[in-house]
């Protein structure tokens, strides 16, 4: 099997079905390292399903390769170790923002990643988050702030691939621009690949590659 070293994510003829309903039909896609890719389309078209398939949460036909490794049950653990995932509006049971940030760093796969308040605050400068948020309870911050906090966590994990589900759903246009600027900062500094499921115009306009998914009626 030939593999292009430049490619970070490769989808070959991927089909996702829920019972009889097909949501993704024979999709092929190559994503280079250091690219920002936007998966867009109307609500319910299958954007989140595609992200879930990449992480092995949804069954699919075809092939998905991350950094040359095929997504399958035999190597799903190594696949997931390469990914940082930011779901849409996650309600974590952690009481404080600090605990919420710390959670993924407590995992064995991320033990070697450097984590400190200073590093968090440095990331927050890009996302315009105030340092006082660090000491707050998770219930005291807004949905938009929570989304930006989770994005900074994904950045601090220093993974090869970041998957983000609707990062701007709770953000005003100004904050959406901050998120875009943060994505560019991550790509420039670490050559990370970012795949975003979003129908936000600013993200679509500023992505290196746009994949539009249409709702299938069969």
């Amino acid at each position, binding site marked *: 099997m030939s593999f292009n070293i430049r490619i970070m994510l490769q989808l070959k003829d991927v089909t996702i079905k829920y019972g009889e309903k097909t949501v993704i039909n024979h999709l092929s896609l190559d994503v280079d390292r250091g690219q920002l890719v936007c998966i867009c389309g109307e609500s319910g078209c299958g954007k989140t399903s595609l992200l879930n398939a990449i992480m092995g949460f949804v069954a699919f036909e075809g092939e998905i390769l991350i950094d040359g490794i095929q997504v399958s049950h035999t190597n*799903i653990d190594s696949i997931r170790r390469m990914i940082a*995932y930011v779901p849409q509006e996650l309600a974590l049971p952690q009481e404080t923002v600090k605990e919420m940030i710390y959670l993924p760093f407590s995992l064995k796969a991320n033990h070697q990643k450097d984590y400190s308040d200073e590093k968090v605050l440095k990331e927050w400068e890009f996302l315009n988050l105030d340092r006082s948020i660090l000491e707050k309870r998770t219930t005291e911050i807004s949905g938009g702030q929570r989304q930006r906090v989770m994005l900074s966590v994904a950045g601090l994990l220093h993974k090869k691939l970041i998957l983000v589900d609707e990062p701007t759903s709770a953000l005003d246009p100004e904050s959406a621009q901050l998120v875009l600027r943060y994505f560019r900062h991550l790509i420039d500094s670490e050559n990370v690949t970012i795949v975003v499921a979003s129908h936000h115009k600013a993200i679509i306009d500023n992505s290196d590659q746009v994949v539009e998914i249409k709702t299938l009626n069969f």
Partner: protein
Amino acid sequence: MVDIDIYGLGIGLVLMLIPLFFLYKLRTGLVHSTLSATIRMIIQLWLIGLYLQFLFLSDVWWVNLIWGLIMTFVATGTAIQRTRLKLQYMGIPLLVSFLSTALIISIYFIGLVLGSSEMKIFEQTFTSTEFLSYLFSARYFIPIFGLLLGNMLGVNVLALSTYFEGIRREQQMYRYLLGNGATRWEATQPFMRKAAIKAFNPCIANMAVMGLVAMPGTMIGQILGGSDPSQAIKYQMMIVVITFVASMLSLMLTIFLAQKQCFDNMGLLKNVIAEKVDNK
């Protein structure tokens, strides 16, 4: 000990009218189920009493062991029914965990704790049949095994419901952990923690007030039966310890054995919980 005759039992059962009255007045819809549960309890205990009398009279170790096995099957069935977990996924883990834990702890308690005083196991030698007859004697094995099963059942039902419902309800959180590199074991940890807290908090609270607020059943039973209170206390202490240990051990074993059965090869929870059937 004074034997309660049939009239005494009748007078005692009249007390049940009080909760039944309130359940009726509060329109809880529980009058029928309380009545049927009371009748079932009377019939079941009566039948079990007769059977235990037979067991105690014959007292053959392997018959007692088979009775233990039957009790384990019933406990497994009850756990499946009360947690609404599907038999195909949880039947084997529960059965293996209940049986092995109850056996290990029963043998430890009867063989070592009681055996060191009664049989002087560290000082005398026995034939294997003598030792098996002691370990699985109806007098010790049946009540201890039953007591352990009862406690394990309660804890497992509460903890397993919390655990599996938690993963199902907070699927996004579970996926967040997996998607950021967690192993399957790591991703289930927050849910295991919650389950253990919910199931063991009442046990710990009960232990803390034992003798002051809660008068333990074993101790009361022994004192009513004519035992010396100091002896009853020692038994009670040991009973609390072995039930606590058995509950924890069985829960960990059930969850460990269920990991492979209940999750697919991508680490996602299978459809292990049966949907509620509305009888109305």
